């Protein structure tokens, strides 16, 4: 792996000028605004995104803490897919579905770094991904430190936090805490080092934080409240970003100007990569034979 933040053409702070999107956004509303713009302008015909689970209803509606991939083809679908929990949604399984069953020619996809790795592998080595490689039109990555299996989220909220899942209004992971806010406004903070063991084990061998293989990657790290940091990485990313800027879709600030900035993103990336490289090394000493490292082929 190259640098912890990967290759990029440009990095900046941004937030969308689309008030409807910004109102419900976790940060600068970058992902929803970009996808909605890309849908409107025909850059993509649909986007694979994580949406609240339909198969397991919750409080009589879709379960926001359990995510499932959908192929969103309207702005409304994108808006309804915004508030999802910190469990992984198997988004990559939908890219072939999007091209084959939905018949889309230009597919957008959002994902955490490991999913973007899956998308790029599907493009370079499309072993079981017929028709997919040439139809991926926009790949947006979201920074990621780790995720939790849904059952771990239940355990953290109910056993560690002492509140029922049904009462949860908001879950936030960051600044060292797993934070739960209930419907009635109670805030519970559980230090992340107490929840570490409940994380998805596969995350502990993950060597990408900033979605270095995406066209555009974004997240809240490093940015002032209400804004996002955005990396423009590829030619496609650059082109789409320029068009969106011309359309007045985003306000931006240069990243040098505001604290905490790029250093904060880099610090998180280095922290994650260092810790997980250690896990990979430790795996060599599980038992007397060790366990396989997926990044090395002899």
């Amino acid at each position, binding site marked *: 792996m190259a640098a912890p933040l990967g290759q990029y053409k440009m990095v900046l702070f941004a937030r969308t000028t689309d008030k409807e999107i910004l109102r419900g956004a976790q940060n600068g509303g970058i992902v929803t605004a970009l996808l909605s713009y890309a849908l409107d302008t025909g850059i993509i015909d649909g986007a694979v995104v994580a949406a609240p689970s339909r198969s397991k209803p919750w409080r009589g509606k879709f379960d926001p803490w359990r995510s499932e991939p959908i192929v969103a083809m309207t702005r409304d679908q994108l808006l309804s897919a915004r508030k999802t929990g910190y469990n992984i949604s198997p988004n990559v399984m939908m890219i072939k579905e999007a091209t084959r069953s939905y018949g889309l020619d230009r597919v957008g996809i959002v994902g955490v770094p490991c999913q973007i790795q899956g998308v790029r592998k599907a493009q370079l080595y499309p072993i079981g991904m017929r028709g997919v490689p040439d139809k991926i039109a926009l790949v947006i990555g979201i920074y990621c430190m780790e995720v939790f299996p849904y059952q771990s989220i239940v355990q953290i909220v109910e056993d560690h936090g002492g509140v029922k899942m049904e009462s949860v209004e908001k879950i936030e992971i960051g600044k060292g805490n797993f934070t739960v806010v209930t419907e009635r406004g109670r805030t519970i903070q559980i230090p992340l080092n107490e929840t570490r063991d409940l994380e998805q084990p596969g995350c502990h061998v993950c060597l990408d934080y900033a979605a270095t293989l995406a066209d555009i990657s974004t997240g809240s790290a490093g940015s002032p409240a209400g804004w996002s940091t955005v990396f423009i990485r590829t030619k496609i990313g650059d082109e789409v970003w320029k068009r969106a800027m011309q359309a007045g879709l985003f306000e931006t600030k240069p990243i040098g100007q505001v604290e905490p900035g790029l250093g904060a993103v880099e610090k998180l990336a280095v922290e994650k990569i260092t810790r997980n490289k250690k896990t990979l090394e430790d795996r060599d000493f599980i038992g007397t034979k060790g366990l396989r490292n997926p*990044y090395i082929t002899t």
Partner: protein
Amino acid sequence: MANKITVGHVHMSGCTGCLVSLADNYLGLIKILDDYADLVYGLTLADVRHIPEMDVALVEGSVCIQDHESVEDIKTARKKAKIVVAVGGCAASGNINRFDRGGQHNQPQHESYVPISDLIDVDVFIPGCAPTPQMIRNVCVMAYLLLRGSDDQKALAAKYLKPLMALAKNPIASKANFNTLMQEVINVGLCMGCGSCAGACPVRAISMEFGKPQGARDLCINCGACYSQCPRSFFHFEVMDEYEAITDIINGAMK
């Protein structure tokens, strides 16, 4: 172009779906045949009776060990070709032929089928059923660059092909099925639930349970696609970080 490589399609026990997949590159196939490769052998496509010398043999199908002619043919293909590619699940991992029990007119005793790497050394695996047109295309372009490219192109092609060559040398890959994904990824704590495997499966045998793939093993046909598509079976940053450049090279070659 004078400097084309020579390619043959060697047909063992397979359904011709691999060949159809190659053809499904449409104009891309014409481009490959115009600029990069001469087709010197192919049952349905070239009027040549005996397997000739060639740079690349694209082998489709498993070998029936009771069919002596097939056993001879696969040995000949190995001798005559610089690079032997197992194209598709049947050649790479046995695929649906694993379930064959014979009984077919007029050779009912033809009942035992093996992937070609059980009998000969294979250089490159392209798993999947059918293998995708784009994957076959990528390997054709990379094989050309490996044999005829500049030094830089040779190095890049070697890097790109390395994991597919490692698969060809890995006894696990020649027995690949859902269990392989289970044993090599999920059971050893590497799965992160991306769903690539479920997307890759041609028979929709894979669903997600507790965020991890679960296989309907009765449906699995042993094509090996899930295992090799998984970003945690192999993932080489030195190739993947060059994702954009490699895509440009492949697209450029097909223009």
